Every structure is written in C-alpha cells, then in structure tokens.
C-alpha cells in the first residue's frame, strides 16, 4: 500500500452532479466547494454577510415606515422630475436603475474577456463599468442635493414622517458607498489587467500572492451584488 506523497496531483475524481453531488461535496476532503477558489468562496461568503447588513437596514426601514402614525411622503412625487412642463414620477431613479444594470452587463462581459486573456477588451470594459458606476453615484449626489434643497433633512422633511429622510439618506448612502468602493476596486484591477499583471502572475503588493484573471470575476461578483441590492432598494423604497 503506497502512501502517495503530496506533490503528485492526479486528475480529480469525477464528481456526481445534483443532490448526490451536494452530499458528496460536503462529505469530501480538502474543499467543500469543488472548483471554487479561495478568493471566490471568500467573496461569496462576504456577500452573504453583506446581505444581512442590507437586510437589517431594510427591516429597520420597513418597521419605521409601518409603525409611524404620521403619513409617509409619496416617493413617486418626491422623486419626480419637472421635465417639459410636466412632472415625470421617479424618472431619475429609473434612469439610475438602467445605468446600474448597464454597468452590470459590461462587467459580465469583462469577466468573459478576462478568461479569454484579452487584456485590452477586459480593461476597457472594466473602466466602462467603473464609469457607469461613477455616473450612478453622480446622479445619486444630484438626487441628494435636490432633496436637501427641497428641505429634506435626516431629522425631518416638509411632507411627513421624519424617518423618510433618515432612512433615505442612510440606505442610499450606504449603497452609494458600496458602489464607490466598487468603482475604486474596478479601476485598480483594470490597471493591473492593462499592465498584464495576470499574464505574468505578478505578485500583489500587499498580499504577495500571484495575480489571477479570476480576480476579475470576483470583483464582478461584488459589482453584481451592488446592482442586486439596488433592485431591492428600488422596489421597497421607491415603489412602495
């Protein structure tokens, strides 16, 4: 009976799919998520945790809105824009939504080209994504200034429940922060891609780990998550 030494790396055993695979994976050694790298697993679990953060924010918002005896300002009027002599409800928010979705599309493609090791396209698409993200944040800033000039404050507003302002600034602010961080990361990674770090497997400055194109997909996961959160904010905050 030969105990094989560590260095030999055989072709991994074929793994069943479906529920059988589920059981097999959890019962297996080394890795529970087969074919999932450390970085990707980390990002997924982080996103799970972040889901709870936004979940709690939304729960708090729901409770505040459902338990206040004061009328809640009607978002579709508050967020209306005066265009061509008529108020178009929620239009800005709609546009923001589209911008963010678009950025998700470009991000998805960036990942794709990344794995094809097509440096230029990947970097360009990521920069494009970052630009859309920045646009989103910009429009958010516009939205904030608009509301503030109309007299909305964290502690009150002209139309009704004070919690309207507080929850609005808190939730969109927190989401905006996520987007901003995403933009920064996108730009950093884009630069690395452009420089070809991932072809030469250049080591990270802090972590001194070899760079992989997979980082593009991981950044993508984060970015799509930000978009995902917006889907819920859009439904619960603006459409309710």
């Amino acid at each position, binding site marked *: *009976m*030969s*105990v*094989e*030494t*560590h260095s*030999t*790396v*055989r*072709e*991994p*055993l074929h793994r069943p799919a479906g529920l059988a695979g589920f*059981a*097999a994976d*959890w*019962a*297996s*050694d*080394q*890795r*529970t*998520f*087969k074919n*999932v*790298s*450390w970085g990707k*697993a*980390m990002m997924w*679990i*982080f996103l*799970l*945790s*972040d889901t*709870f*953060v936004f*979940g*709690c*924010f939304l*729960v*708090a918002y729901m*409770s*505040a809105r459902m*338990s*206040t*005896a*004061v009328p809640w300002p009607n978002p579709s009027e508050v967020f209306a824009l005066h265009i061509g002599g008529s108020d178009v409800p929620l239009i800005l928010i709609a546009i923001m939504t589209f911008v963010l979705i678009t950025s998700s599309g470009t991000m998805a493609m960036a990942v794709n080209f990344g794995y094809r090791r097509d440096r230029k396209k990947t970097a360009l698409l990521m920069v494009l994504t970052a630009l859309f993200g920045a646009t989103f944040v910009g429009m958010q800033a516009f939205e904030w200034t608009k509301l503030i000039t109309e007299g909305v404050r*964290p*502690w009150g507003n002209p139309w009704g*429940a*004070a*919690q309207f*302002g*507080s*929850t609005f600034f*808190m939730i969109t602010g927190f989401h905006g922060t996520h987007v901003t961080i995403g933009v920064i990361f996108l730009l950093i990674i884009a630069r690395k891609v452009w420089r070809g770090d991932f072809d030469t497997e250049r080591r990270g400055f*802090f*972590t*001194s780990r070899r760079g992989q194109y997979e980082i593009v997909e991981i950044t993508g996961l984060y970015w799509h998550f930000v978009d995902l959160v917006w889907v819920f904010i859009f439904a619960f905050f603006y459409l309710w």
Partner: protein
Amino acid sequence: MVDIRHGTSEQIGPAEVEDVELYHPHSWWTRYVFSQDAKIIAVQYASTAIAIGMVALVLSWLMRLQLGFPGVFTFIDAERYYQFITMHGMIMVIYLLTALFLGGFGNYLIPLMLGARDMVFPYANMLSYWLYLLAVLVLVTSFFAPGGPTGAGWTLYPPQAVLSGTPGGKDWGIILMLSSLILFVIGFTMGGLNYVVTVLQGRTRGMTLMRMPLTVWGIFTATVMALLAFPALFVACVMMLFDRVLGTSFFMPAIVEMGEQLQHGGGSPILFQHLFWFFGHPEVYIVALPAFGIVSDLISTHARKNIFGYRMMVWAIVIIGALSFIVWAHHMYVSGMNPYFGFFFATTTLIIAVPTALKVYNWVLTLWRGDIHLTLPMLFALAFIVTFVNGGLTGLFLGNVVVDVPLSDTMFVVAHFHMVMGVAPILVIFGAIYHWYPKVTGRMLNEVMGQIHFWVTFVGAYLIFFPMHYLGLIGMPRRYYEMGETAFVPASAHTLNEFITIMALVVGAAQIVFLFNLIWSIRHGREAGGNPWRATTLEWQTPETPPRHGNWKELPVVYRWAYDYSVPGAAEDFIPQNQPGSTGLGAEEAS
C-alpha cells in the same frame, strides 16, 4: 466519500490545489509585529483580549464592592457604577470572550488542526487583529473622554442611552462605544471570512468535515453565526449613532426629558431591541459553541476515550447555531412587544434545550468507562459541565415565558448568564490554555499554581453565582446601584450580598496566580515535548514545537477521525489522525 472513522490512502483523492507559497517576512517587524502568521496573530489576539478582560475583571470587583458594602466606597457613585457595569458586560462578552475564542483559539487551532499551512488570507487576517486592537483602544479612550464611558448598560437601550439622564449619553461615551463596536464588527468580518474559508476550502487531504475535531466545528459554526449576526449589531449601532449625532429619530419617539420637549418623534425603541437581540442571542451562543467544541476535545483526550456520539455532537452544534437565530425575543418577553410573540419564542427557546442536553449527555457518557486522567484541563472540563448545566437549566426558567415575567431584570438573570457565560466558557478557556500552552510555548504550566487556580476559581465562582439566583427570586432587580431600604428584602439578603462580594474578590485574586503562572512558565515551565497529552489531533503532530511559520514540512495526510483513543488491538492508547494503516479501525461500529 471517505468513511468518517478511517480510510486508506487509496480512498484519499489527490491534492486539488497546489501547496501555497508562504509570505516570507523580511524584517523583525513583519515577523513579530505585523505578522501574517496565524499563530502569532492568535497570540496577539489572546494577549489583547486577556489584558482588556483583566480591566473588566477589576470593574467587577468595584461593582461588587458597591453592591456588597453600599455607601462604604464613596468614590463609586451611581454614575460610575453604571459606567462600570456597562463596560464590564460589554468587554467581557465582545472584547474578551468573542475575541479570545475566535480570534485567539480560532487563529491558532484551525490551520493546525486542519493540516493547513496558514489561514487562507494571511494579510486580511493581520488587518483583522489591528482593527480589533483599534476597537479596543477606542473603547479604552472612552474611560478618559469627558463625561466618561457610557453607562447605558451593555444592551445600550435607547432612548436612555443617548439622553443626559445616563452617563456618557450626551457626552462622548456612547459615541465612542458605538464607534468601537462598528470597528470591531468590520475587523471581525475580515478574520471571520478567513476562518470560514479555511475550514471549508483549506483542509488537507483526507480531512473531511466529519473528521474535524469538535473544537474546529465549534469555532467554525460560531464564526458563521457571527458573520450573520454581527450585521444586525452593526446596523443598530449605525442607526443609534445617527440618532445621537445627526438628530435622526430611528429609535426616538416624542420625548419630554426632564420637562423639556426634544426634537425627536415617531421612532420606535422596540426596534432597537429587536435588532440588538437578533445579534445578541446568537452572540451568546457564539461564545458558547467554541467552548462546547473545545471541552469535547479536552474530555476525550484526557479520558483517553473517543467522544461519545460524534455525529450527534456535530449535528447538535449546527442545529443550535441555526435555531439561535429564531429565539432572540426571549430577551424581550416583558419589553412590551407584541405579547403573542411569547408563544412562538418560548417554544423555539425551549426546543434549543434538547440538542444542548444531548451534548451534555454525550460529555458525561464519554467519561463512562473511560480512563480518566485528572489533569488540569480535565478538571476544568468537569467544572464546566457542572456550571454549564446549572446555568443552562436556569435558562429554562427564563425561556418559559411566564416564569420569566417575575424573574426578568432581577439578579436571577444576572446569576443565570454568569453561570452559563461568565463562568462555564471562562473555565473552558482556562482548561484550553492549560491544554495548549505546551504547544504554543513548548513548556508546561506549573501544576501547583494550576491546582490553586482551579479550586478557587471553580468553587468560588459557583459560590458567587448560585446563591445570587435567590436574590433574584426575592425580587431584587438587576442594575441597582443600591437596594436602599426595601420592605420585601430581608436583612439577611444584604449579608448574602457581602458574602458574594468577598468570594468575588477571592476568585479574582486566583486569576492573578494564573496570570503569574502564564508568564513564569514561559521560562521555568517543564519542557513539554511535541505531544505531552498523547493526543491524536494534528496540531500535536507538527515537526517542531512550537510549530514554525507554515506549520509542516510536508503537508500531513489524514487517515482517520480525531478520536481514535484506546482503540482495541492498537499498541498505544491513541492513534494520530495522520497515521496510516488499519490498526483497530473499529470498522464494525463504523457502519
């Protein structure tokens, strides 16, 4: 799939990921201070936690002095008293227990026990510690800030927490407290992701989840819970911070404070309580599950017997972890929440008693027909079972909604959670330190000092908190700076209070013996050798002791579960996990 209890190399797949290249420190700073080695980070975490824990311990003496001899120690006025209990509670739960179990033991044991070289993301792991340290420092500064630390109680219930009737409410205290917590959560998340991913993705060949030592199971489950529970705390802190500094009204209804109308309106204090306990209850199990896991290994190792009902133990841990997210409102039975919640939460709460009970049974059944060595770790393990069962059972009083009505917010609650959290897991920590100190330093802790420490701490702590239940039964409320003259409190109760205080001081003194032992033994302790307890788990099979950066020369391969003690037919009474061959595999029972 590999059999839980044993396997031959044929059944073990090839390495799926290539061996990581370690980060090589270039300077003394990157080696010992800004180290990315989980073992060093663990020691940093542990020392910081113990240091701040000592502060909390001293605070507990001051509190006891006030409760035992009201009016004697005039420098403890009401304000200070409330600041003391708040800091005492918060430090003990978050900055001592959580940090020590997950950051300390987690960092040290997970990679070693799983046969990994290090955590999967050493850099984030390092950041985690430094953020934790920052959080601690922010907390400490609040002691020196104008107005002092917050005195809102560790539950920080608004509106009181941010009003002038409470110490630190309108000063810096509460702001620093909340900021510190936010930092802690962020820092912990970095570490937590590390622990979870290392357990899920960083195990060595042959190490299946069902072969992990229960220690890892406990810490792993607790970390997952923390990653899902801390967000609620984070959100609650952010919102209260806004209420305090921006004047929002998340938790603030219309309020007349000392005859003056405040600007707030429409908020709901109950909302904070729900957010807090949605975090808070999982939190108490976060500090309990690692203790469960560790104590299982201590008992098994020192009784030279496999842990009884391993699978049951694992499932119990997982089920407790899951259930603990739907019992939070048992802290709010008398909070004025929707009274019909009582039915739901009382039921879920008492259900948790069943898996917990099974763990207790399996611990004692592991002793049955064992070969019990009464070493220090074993003694502490036994003490843990006694105190935990006692505290857990009083939990059933409080969980049973009607019974909680008279007992809630009395000293009975204080006695309950000290017995179950302030004593039981702490005893496990001590046992664990006596158990793993040889691996960390290469030397044993002094036995005599250890015995003194054990007896005083165990008996003393029991004498502190067992009688305390009856103070609560009389009706003595908690968080009372002084009972004063109260008709229904007999004079004898005050005598009991004095007794408790004296015991607390005695037990406290014993901790100083322990600390001295910790430092003294680094130099003068008996040489331990690689595997002094003749244990099976991987951390005892490292080539060097203390293990070097990277832990192994060549990664170990695991052929059996962690509990092959006293296997029939085996030469030794233990078989290390990385020992191949089918000696006494107990294959019969396996199926």
